[in-house]
């Protein structure tokens, strides 16, 4: 008992706890709970200085079940210090540092059972067994990684090829774009030239048109006055060229609220503050408010309120739209439809104008139209090329792994079903969930970033900004990517509300140099 930290004890209970010296298999005697590497710091021939240097105590105070050091370094083998650690060798398996509070607490924490040397439990040494299992698991993993790494090499090749292809495509597209732009510019110049000629030719017609329009307006105005005067005369029963309250109250059209009588308010509505009105005032004040009522009576006009009530429905559609996810493709689709819309309008204009002009103008218009069409087409070509460029650029910007090993997975979709839902993971795109009982697809997130942290960045994918939860944040999904020979979605859970967790295996993750391939095979004695 050379290194005994024995001090005379008062009670047998303590005797048990404080018989400190242990001989571990490595034959280096050291205080209980101290690792081999720290053994030199505990020299029985000297006083002990706490690791933090604050206090020096007799060596007999080491592991005497009383905490003297603020850093807990004097009690590596007991539970006396709240902030201390106990080292278990765990021969046959991995060594461990457990918090001192787990020493002699009645729970076997170390597989060699050394943490429970003075409690009521008897711990069996399970290190050999656990070690064996761990080694077998490490072996299995190593083999898996090895097999997987061959597939991974293929994926890397394909990934690089895909990337190169994209780079080439991009180059080609850039070239196409500049050509297309050139064409577009030419077409534009031509269009502008022909349009100015067309404008010149149409000027005459447009002026004529304008005169015609003014004429029509004047006629309409005169008609209106005429109509109003006729109506005035009809109402002016005493023919004194003045309309009085009495005269109008016989006509039901003035009974706006249809209560069977023309009351003060109604009179005011039609007469302003006047008692009676003459012809001019009738035309300028009364007629404009009367006419719609007349038309309504004749069934030609519907009151405005009723029409408004019909409006709100489209909102519902808009709201429904909010639930669906927008992607780049959707954008293109909508751009496309915009283009189609323009075209239709242009055609309408043209068709209206046919047959009105003389032959020469007709020809100019036709030429201009032709030029416009060509220009539009050229513009569309440029837009299409630009869209393709954007798409490829986006893909090129994506992080497909250090060696492009994940590149070929882009756009691949994998499904997983549980009791209630079908989950769909489209790699580097989006995650969705669809109830088996029907209902719309719910977005659980769009591709965000790799989130495995510094030690293993490519072990976790994060899909963010899914559909928002009630009273909560947007749904997100984390995909844990593990090495497997098959590319497969293994499981889906919702550990936190609206935060989904997926396990996904792929040979792309079988990187033999990654930390996850190694953690089980190290640390062994």
């Amino acid at each position: 008992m050379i290194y005994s930290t024995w001090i005379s004890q008062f009670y047998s209970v303590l005797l048990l706890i404080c018989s400190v010296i242990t001989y571990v298999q490595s034959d280096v005697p050291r205080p209980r709970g101290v690792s081999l590497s720290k053994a030199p710091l505990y020299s029985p021939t000297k006083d002990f200085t706490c690791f933090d240097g604050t206090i020096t105590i007799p060596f007999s105070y080491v592991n005497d079940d009383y905490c003297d050091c603020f850093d807990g370094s004097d009690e590596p083998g007991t539970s006396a210090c709240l902030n201390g650690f106990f080292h278990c060798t765990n021969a046959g398996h991995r060594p461990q540092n457990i918090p001192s509070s787990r020493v002699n607490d009645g729970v076997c924490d170390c597989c060699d059972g050394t943490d429970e040397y003075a409690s009521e439990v008897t711990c069996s040494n399970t290190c050999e067994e656990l070690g064996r299992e761990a080694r077998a698991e490490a072996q299995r993993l190593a083999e898996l990684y090895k097999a997987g790494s061959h597939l991974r090499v293929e994926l890397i090749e394909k990934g690089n090829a895909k990337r190169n292809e994209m780079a080439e495509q991009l180059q080609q597209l850039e070239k196409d774009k500049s050509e297309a732009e050139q064409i577009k510019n030419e077409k534009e110049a031509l269009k502008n030239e022909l349009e100015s000629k067309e404008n010149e030719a149409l000027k005459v017609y447009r002026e004529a048109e304008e005169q015609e329009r003014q004429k029509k307006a004047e006629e309409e105005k005169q008609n209106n006055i005429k109509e109003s005067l006729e109506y005035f005369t009809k109402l002016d029963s005493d023919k004194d060229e003045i309309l009085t309250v009495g005269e109008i109250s016989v006509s039901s059209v003035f009974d706006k609220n249809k209560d069977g009588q023309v009351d003060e308010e109604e009179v005011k509505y039609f007469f302003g503050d006047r008692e009676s009105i003459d012809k001019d005032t009738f035309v300028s004040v009364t007629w404009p408010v009367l006419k719609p009522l007349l038309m309504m009576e004749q069934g030609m006009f519907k009151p405005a309120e009723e029409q408004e009530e019909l409006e709100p429905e489209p909102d519902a559609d808009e709201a429904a739209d909010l639930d669906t996810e927008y992607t780049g493709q959707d954008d293109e689709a909508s751009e496309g439809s915009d283009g189609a819309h323009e075209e239709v309008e242009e055609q309408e204009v043209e068709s209206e104008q046919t047959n009105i002009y003389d032959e020469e103008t007709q020809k100019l218009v036709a030429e201009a139209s032709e030029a416009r069409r060509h220009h539009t087409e050229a513009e569309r070509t440029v837009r299409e090329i630009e869209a393709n460029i954007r798409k490829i650029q986006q893909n090129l910007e994506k992080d497909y792994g250090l060696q492009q090993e994940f590149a070929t997975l882009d756009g691949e979709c994998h499904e997983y079903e549980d009791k209630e839902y079908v989950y769909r993971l489209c790699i580097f795109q989006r995650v969705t969930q669809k109830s088996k009982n029907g209902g719309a697809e719910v977005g659980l997130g769009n591709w965000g970033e790799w989130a495995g942290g510094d030690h293993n960045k490519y072990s976790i994918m994060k899909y963010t900004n899914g559909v928002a939860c009630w009273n909560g944040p947007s749904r997100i999904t984390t995909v844990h990517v593990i090495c497997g020979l098959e590319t497969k979605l293994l499981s889906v859970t919702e550990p936190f509300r609206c935060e989904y967790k997926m396990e996904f295996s792929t040979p792309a993750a079988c990187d033999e140099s990654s930390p996850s391939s190694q953690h089980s095979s190290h640390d062994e004695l």
Partner: protein
Amino acid sequence: MKSWGLLLVAALAIGSSFGVHKNNFKTCDQSGFCKRLRSFKPEKSQYSLNLDTVIVHGNVLSAEVNTVDTTTQKRIILWHYALRLSALVDGTFRVEIDEADPLYPRYRTQLALNGEPKADGLKIVSNENGIITVANSQGHKVIITAEPLKLEFVNLAGDVAVILNDNAQLMVEPLRVKKERVDDEDTNLVEVEEEGTWGENFKSHHDSKPRGNEAVSLDFSFPEADNVYGIPEHTDKLALRTTTSGDPYRLYNLDVFEYELDSRMAIYGAIPVVYSHGPKRTAGVFWHNSAETWVDVVNYADSTVVSSLVNLVTGGQKRRVDTRFISESGIVDAFVFLGEKPADVFRQYTQLTGSAPIPPKFSLAYHQCRWNYVDEADVRGVDDNLDNYDIPADVIWLDIEYTDRKKYFTWDPIKFPHPSDMVANLTAKGRKLVVIVDPHVKREAGYFLHEDATELGYYVKDKDGKDYEGWCWPGSSSYLDFFDPAVSKYNSERYLFENFPGTSKDVHLWNDMNEPSVFNGPEITMPKDCRHYKPPQDGNDGLAAFWEHRHVHNEYGLWNVRSTHEGMLQRVDNKYRPFILTRSAFSGTQRYGAVWTGDNAAEWGFLAVSVPMCLSLSVAGVSFCGSDVGGFFKYPEPELMTRWYQAGAFQPFFRAHSHIETKRREPWLYEAPTTALLRDANRRRYALIDFWYTLFYEHSVDGLPVMRPLFQEYPHEEDTFTIDDQYLLGDKLLIRPVVQPGVSSVPVYLPGAAQRTLWYDVDSYHAHHAAGYFTQDVTISKIPVYQRGGIIIPRKERIRRSSSLMADDPYTLVVALDVNGTAQGSLYIDDGESYEYRNNKYIYAKFKYESNAMTYSFPNENAHYPTRSWVERIVIAGIKTPPKTAKLHQGDKQLSLQMTLHKGNDVLVVRKPGANMAHPWKITFSY
């Protein structure tokens, strides 16, 4: 756990804001009897005692009381009543007034009392001029004025402490037969029936009121009182406010979704006990009634009380508080406590209704809860993370989602297929599981509970006698009628291990929603005209054959937890102590379980109110109280979460809980610095776990609050009368939780200046001389806690994963010296879970420190417990002249001890005395 409001969520999702839906709940005006009786303020009481009928037999004076028509000169007796005045032990009297010959028996609350109250002697002292004076064996007197009836209770000093019917508000509405509408000639008969007598409506609900009006009321005046306290559960201050403007305080157990602060609205619990206190004396009244009750308070010191009224009633006297209880049914049954100190009245109340038995030790540790830990993997993950992040915890909880589609006593077969294994995994680390069982029963064909209850007639019946159907978590639900002994027994037996597979002695229970909560019922509870069991008896037919829900409402949850308690005892052959958490509470609930303050929110106001709410419950017998740490609704940001853990660590029931729709907030989900602060708060709790256990042992013996208002210990210090943001644990620690954001200091009131009390900051051992308020600087890690000079507190400083793993650990004894250099303390030790303490297998030890020696002794020589714990360290704070040597004596052994003096703060540390705590010891000091 939660309220029914979730069901509304979809409807309210747009534009909804946090807050109670007040119009779901009645105001006094909407509650027929409250409106009717509150306005009843006669100048002179109609009630008078017939002196010729007075009989004193044993401890009871009985007499006939009549109502007399005061509007005529002729003496017309309107109705006959029976009065009983009983003298009970410990300065307590009981006053009962029932109809002399009621049409049907009126309901007498059944479970509140902890057995028959113990009788004291009673004798007539004098009987002259229409005034009878009686006295109990101690010398407390009651002066009974016959006409109008008035009872004055006189304490030992000869002062009137409580007056009954001084404001003439005694009222017992006689039961009557409903008169059918008759011919016009007899309209005078019909006129007696006020509208609402035979039926009332609230919102879409109709209450059929088959017995008509049957309300009771009485006023209690407290001369020379500064304040009154009690009648929980409300979110108001500890000291009750004058209610002349607005509604009275309401007592009616209700599931109030998003309840509001500073309110006199009824919430989950209803405990009808009120205490008065002034510098001269303390008194109290327990209104023994389980029906809906409203309580008015008029404090004459309050500026809102019209001064003319003060002059009229008290002749200008400013110190007085009047209260008035109005209940919908039952009889007048009031216990009067004559104090004279606060601790006396609190004890007098628990003498009657019982105190909490020693809880299983784990239940005083930290509880980790959420609605819901979703499956077994989740539970395992939480359990593992508690260890990974070194957060000590004793219990993981399962809310309603563990069941097979809300059928209690079943497990979700997919999410919880192996409950026994899950429990074993927890118990391997000394942890426990608590599962919820609510009193509503899913009406589903094939569910054994529903089929049994239907077949055996075990459900509460509706007004027509059919099984009542309400709506709760499972959808269509019915409710067990625990008032029937057969139902209660049946329910108890559901807890037997063979009937609830997957449970073991380490699985404990949570009875939530037991107000009862009925989502589609009036005021979210059961209709008042539902029928409960009444023991069959000759002549009890028709309306007399059952009790209505209105009679028993506030007692329903108590019947529920009593049945659960019985079942949990049965399942372990009465060997192990059960733990039950209940949301509804009534007088007597404390005998069966802990109470928490229901569905609060992650807001600073709710953290702050947890203190007055629990203080109010504590003085009303419920010491085992806490709030959902972190807040149930909403998400607590790190600072609020930190302050809530720090506060919760020093409140009796310490459980973190959250709503299913909120973000997860287990301690490790915060940034590391916050997690460290939460860990530190938990560690403080665990270091004091034996201190808490000792407090609860002492409570089980003396019935005094564990969590105490300052005025309990400092009854003459007027500043303390309204302090409810700080409190005492026992008479030992003073706690002032930080309940505001962003503060760098808080005002702390240190009481006891007159006694030259010292208060030691537990972090620094710095001694403050009590002198009222001082400013305590705080950082985010600071919890202002002070140990009273003169107190010794046992600590365990080796914080393990759970409290049971610390059972054998050594103690650090913190001795805080008073101005005389002395201190004392106590420590209770037993196995933490069984009833073996009843067989003297426990230690209740006293510590005593004087300058020449410190002793550890067992006052009860027959009680022993073979603990392996020992004394690791003794910290003596406030020592002016340190001893030179210290020597331990235990048995015939002696040992010299080492000591270290810390000059900066006068702290002497005795290193490792090593004495075993199973036996007495002594340390002598020489100078």
